[in-house]
């Protein structure tokens, strides 16, 4: 007797009708999106875009350009002598550099955090807040590791605390299901 616990034999692509093909395609897409690499890439891309917007906003409010003091050969006074178009070109280049660096940072944060959290959750086979805590620590520590071990520790603690706070807030609405649908 055929083992009923096994899934039915897969039909090749030609044997399936249009609906079944669409369903198979949708299933594959959902499998890729909910896998760990898919989650990491999606999070990284959305972090990149968000970081771009954030960078544009922050660049337009930047106040750390050198203030002109009237000294000769001051780069700012030299810049102010240029025609408008070239001034704008210089400013746009600066804004683009800031935007790109901010986008890159946010993209890294998103990708690493989502990837590590998904991996830790798959490893532990549990869904609680400690996945986010561990992932936050690795993300924060990993991004700050070039500035030495103390900065890495501070980054780890800060990011883990931030991630735990957000997770606790998102889970505050979860709870047991009601005993029945009639009287709550």
């Amino acid at each position: 007797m055929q083992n009923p616990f096994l899934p039915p034999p897969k039909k090749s692509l030609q044997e399936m009708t249009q609906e079944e093909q669409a369903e198979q395609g949708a299933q594959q897409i959902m499998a890729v999106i909910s896998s760990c690499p898919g989650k990491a890439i999606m999070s990284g891309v959305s972090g990149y875009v968000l970081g771009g917007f954030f960078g544009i906003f922050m660049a337009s409010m930047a106040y750390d350009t050198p203030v002109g003091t009237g000294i000769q050969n001051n780069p700012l006074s030299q810049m102010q002598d240029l025609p408008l178009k070239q001034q704008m070109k210089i400013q746009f280049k600066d804004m683009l550099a800031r935007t790109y660096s901010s986008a890159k940072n946010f993209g890294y944060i998103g990708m690493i955090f989502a990837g590590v959290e998904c991996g830790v959750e798959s490893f532990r086979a549990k869904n609680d807040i400690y996945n986010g805590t561990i992932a936050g620590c690795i993300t924060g520590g990993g991004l700050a590791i070039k500035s030495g071990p103390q900065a890495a520790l501070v980054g780890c603690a800060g990011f883990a605390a931030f991630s735990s706070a957000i997770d606790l807030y998102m889970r505050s609405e979860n709870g047991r299901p009601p005993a029945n649908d009639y009287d709550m």
Partner: protein
Amino acid sequence: MSMFLNQQSLQTVDETKLQYAEIQYDAMKSTLNTIFAQCSQKCIPLDYGENDMNKGETVCTDRCVSKFMQANRLLGAFAHRVRLSESDLSHYEQIKRKYLSGN
């Protein structure tokens, strides 16, 4: 409609084969129900906020079912080898009676 085209299906069913099928069905039903109960108890906590299973629950359920089936297969082979029968499991009735009587 096929029962008019295929005359063979009008023959009587073999009694031993029917019993065999019933036993197999009971075994598989009990295995499946035990898998549902055990794996949902171990893997799916009663604290959730959405209707989809998340990654941890999915992975846990996969592993639980796989381990259960492996253990089921090993124990089935063992029971077949030592020719386990109902008389060997008679002590479970006593345990059940004792548990249900509230001791």
